[in-house]
Structures are given as C-alpha cells and as structure tokens.
C-alpha cells in the first residue's frame, strides 16, 4: 500500500525519511501513535490465551532502561568508589 499507511517495522531503511515526513507530528498524532504501539504490544504479548510472566517482565525491564537513561547524566558524574 502507500508508504504512509504501513507500520514502522515494515518500512525499509532507505524509505525511512520519506515515512517520517508523512507522519502527523501533532500532540494528537503522537498520542495516537503511542496508543497504537501499546495496543499492538498488548495484543501480541499480554492478551494471549496462555500468557506467562514474559509480557509484563519485558515491560518492567523497559521501564528500568527508561529510568536509567533518564538518570544517566546524574550518575555519570559520580566518581568511581573503587579508586582510593
């Protein structure tokens, strides 16, 4: 189909800049994209017949990574404790 209709994972690397130019970068557009992303994650990993701890654990690991990146500037400045 047309380039703007395809989801991100099906876009080839060379066409990426064209795809980005077709997205709606408004608050509503970003919120819609976030909601679509969450719904596809939820449908694929959590809303399954015999789910396990994997779906939520990946979410928690992603949350830890996000918190790490948020704090990075702060603890990169702390001098290493092992050096006396």
């Amino acid at each position, binding site marked *: 189909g047309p380039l703007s209709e395809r989801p991100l994972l099906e876009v080839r690397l060379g066409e990426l800049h064209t795809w980005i130019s077709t997205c709606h970068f408004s608050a509503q557009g970003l919120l819609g994209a976030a909601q679509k992303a*969450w719904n596809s994650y*939820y449908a694929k990993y*959590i*809303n*399954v*017949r*015999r*789910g*396990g701890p994997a*779906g*939520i654990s990946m*979410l*928690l690991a992603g*949350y*830890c990574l*996000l*918190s*790490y*990146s*948020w*704090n990075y*500037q*702060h603890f990169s400045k*702390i001098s290493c*404790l*092992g050096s006396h």
Partner: protein
Amino acid sequence: MNLSFFDQFMSPSLLGIPLILISLLFPTLLFPSPDNRWITNRISTLQLWFFQLITKQLMTPLNKKGHKWALILLSLMVLLLTINLLGLLPYTFTPTTQLSMNLALAFPLWLATLLTGLRNQPSIALGHLLPEGTPTPLIPALILIETTSLLIRPLALGVRLTANLTAGHLLIQLISTASTVLLPIMPAVSLLTTIILLLLTILEVAVAMIQAYVFVLLLSLYLQENI
C-alpha cells in the same frame, strides 16, 4: 562523608520532562481494563481476583453508606502498592518518597472523612473526642489530647509512608555501597554484607506492601468512625 546518598530522592528531569510524571503514569499500563469477553487473558483474571480480595477486605467493616468509598479506596491501594513495589527495581524513581505527594494524598482524604462525619452526624463525630468511662476531672485534658490526635492524623499518615520508604531505600543504597567498596579489600565481609542486602530487599518488598495496606486501612478506619 559525601551527602550524595540523598540524590536518589531528587526528581530527575530530562529535556524538561520530570521522571516523576512517567513514574506516576506507568502503573496504569500494568492494569489493563478487561474486555467484554467471558474468558479474558491471565493477567485480567489475576487482576479481578486481586481486586475482589482487597475490596472484600476493606469493605467488610463498613456500613452500606461507606461502600460508596469502595472505588477510591481500592484505586488508592492499588496505586500505592504498585508505586512502592516498582520503586524497588533498579534505577527507578519512587514518587511516594516525596513528602509532598504523601501529604497531598492523606490530607484531602482525611478531611473528607472528617467533614462527612461532622456534616451527617455531628454529635457522634464530636463524641469520639471523649472515650467512655473517663473520670470527670480528666475530661478537659482528655478532650485536648483527643483533638490533637485527631488533627495530627493526616500528618502521621503522610510521614509514616514517606519515612518508611525513604529509610528503606537509603538502607539499601548504604549497604550496597558498603559491599561494593569492601569487595577488593575483604571479600568475606563483602559476601556477608551481600547476604544482609538480600534479606533487606525481602524486608523492603514486605514493607512496601504493608505500608500501602496500612495507609488505606487507617483511612477506612477513620471513615468507619464518621459515616
């Protein structure tokens, strides 16, 4: 002695977006709203079972008028439980370590219970200020004491939650710093410290759950007196 141990309680922000915003919104993702299906996925089933357990536990002592508070008490309990437990993961930020947030949760809810009591049954609500069977000379002093204890309730609620979580997080950071520093010097002591850290983490998981339960339980007790 470096005072950087308290830096973990500062709300970090990246590009002007504070992390506390994400920490407060993330628990909503962990509790998906159930579909209209008869048999839902496992997490929805677990969630339903858990919520029914909490609601039954909280609502049994309350009369019928108090059941209107079921939704707010349940959602408060789930929020506090999730925030406290998520704070134990590495690098995460716990919003309930901030006194401002806990007082903002405690004050309005306590005030709501107090005003409900004073509006609907003022003599019963004021009657709680004097326990039965008090000897007559002690009455003025006891009324003052009971009024003070009534007015200090929201402060106690907020500070209890803050102090427990802050102390726990600080202890974890101190003991893990100690075991990291001791590792090249005395590995045996470092191993002992790591075992203590493991036990402390188990304690902190328990404390996180208990503190959330105590907060909501006390609020339901204050409601019981006044409704």
